[in-house]
């Protein structure tokens, strides 16, 4: 398993897409952080960049990579390797490469230019989102046989969580505004990893006004410590559930 991870990384760290992704993140991070005088404002812009780019790039890149390496996966599975080890090794390799890209692109500038607890939370949140969306793309790869359909599903998943979900949430709040919906709303938010990532960072920033309804709820109900632990726990679930399902399904998949 270690061997496969090593060689997947060796391949990916020379991949042009990964290099361009790192570069763009770095340029955005440096310019955003050095332009605005107010550090929490800079971090907030960086948070929005993270929430916009990380999910869609991670899920698209990983899905395409998994589908493109189908033939090589077959060749390796003709060796005495367990399917579980094979698919987990591929996941770890891709997730690691994308996380390194994020750490170099966003992590390094924000630690160097604006070291604070909030920056660290932003980095953690970005890495968790990378891991989550790579896990989701693994699930897509296992469920779909056709590459085109798989990529379509990846785009829909990413758009659902970054754009559509908020719309649904708003219409939910709007139509049930006469009822006490605070608690169901908390549960609802846990269904979206992007929101969880946003809340994790916002809890560390003193911008209650900008947190919107869901963020304010989180802070009120749980305080920042419990709120952070809760969202990290939910995000871990968002990584492990797709992974476990993928491994199970992959055991029975025809290649």
């Amino acid at each position, binding site marked *: 398993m270690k061997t496969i991870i090593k060689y997947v990384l060796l391949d990916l760290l020379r991949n042009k897409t990964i290099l361009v992704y790192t570069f763009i993140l770095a340029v955005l991070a440096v310019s955003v952080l050095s332009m605005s005088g107010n550090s929490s404002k800079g971090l907030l812009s960086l948070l929005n960049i993270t929430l916009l780019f990380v999910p869609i790039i991670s899920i698209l890149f990983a899905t395409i990579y998994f589908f493109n390496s189908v033939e090589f996966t077959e060749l390796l599975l*003709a*060796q005495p390797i367990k399917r579980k080890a094979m698919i987990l090794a591929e996941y770890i390799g891709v997730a690691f490469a994308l996380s390194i890209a994020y750490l170099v692109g966003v992590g390094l500038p924000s630690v160097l230019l604006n070291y604070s607890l909030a920056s660290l939370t932003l980095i953690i949140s970005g890495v968790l989102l990378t891991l989550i969306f790579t896990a989701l793309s693994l699930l897509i790869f296992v469920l779909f046989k056709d590459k085109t359909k798989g990529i379509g599903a990846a785009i829909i998943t990413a758009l659902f969580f970054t754009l559509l979900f908020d719309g649904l949430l708003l219409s939910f709040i709007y139509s049930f505004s006469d009822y006490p919906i605070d608690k169901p709303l908390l549960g609802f938010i846990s269904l979206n990893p992007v929101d969880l990532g946003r809340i994790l960072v916002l809890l560390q920033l003193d911008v209650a006004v900008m947190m919107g309804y869901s963020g304010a709820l989180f802070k009120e109900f749980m305080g920042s410590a419990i709120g952070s632990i809760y969202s990290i726990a939910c995000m871990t679930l968002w990584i492990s559930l797709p992974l476990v399902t993928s491994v199970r399904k992959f055991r029975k998949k025809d290649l």
Partner: protein
Amino acid sequence: MISVENLTKSFGKFKALDNVSLSFNRGNTISLIGPNGSGKTTLIKSILGLVIPEKGIIRINGTEIKSNPIYRSQIGYMPQIGRYPENMTIRQVINMLKEIRKDCNSYDEELIEGFGIPALQHKTMRSLSGGTRQKVSACLAFLFQPDIFILDEPTAGLDPVSSELLKDKIIKERENGKLILITSHVLSDLDDITSHVVYLQEGKLIFYKDIEQLKESTGENKLNKVIAMIMQKDFLKVHAI
């Protein structure tokens, strides 16, 4: 060495393999022949554990293949399409496989030398032509000196010199008492190397015969003529082979 009993597999409504039973022995080269979509690749992939059959048992050296992947260390597989991670060099691919197969420490590098791979070893897989990739696949199949070779369209895309080299290697391994399963649409390529023919059509086994026997009953000398003769209507019924 390999025995297949009542193997059935369908993809949706399409029956790729329909109750196929076969057994292959050491020292034979078995050609799997049949039209496109007749189930050749599905049969090969079932033996490799890449396709999970619905019904039927596959045994290798008497032990049933199930979830334990150890049996695959005895098989060298050359896929129909060889695609490799783009940014890896030939050398890295070969080293990766060697590291995965730590159980094996003597390598058969005859083909690597024969194909002149060492001169290309620093090229990335992305920059290689289809034929060169095919050569890499062939080298990997023979590298760990397995007892069983499964070659899916091995000569497709190879230049005549390399194709002959590969055929010589196949004959040599067969003489060493190994079992070789081979599929190809280029019947003339199979001529000198085949000892048995398996003919599949629409997932069903039509016949599994010794090549000499087939040549005798058809009166033809070349494999493509033999197959053409058999495919003519009613030949099978009349001659009851």
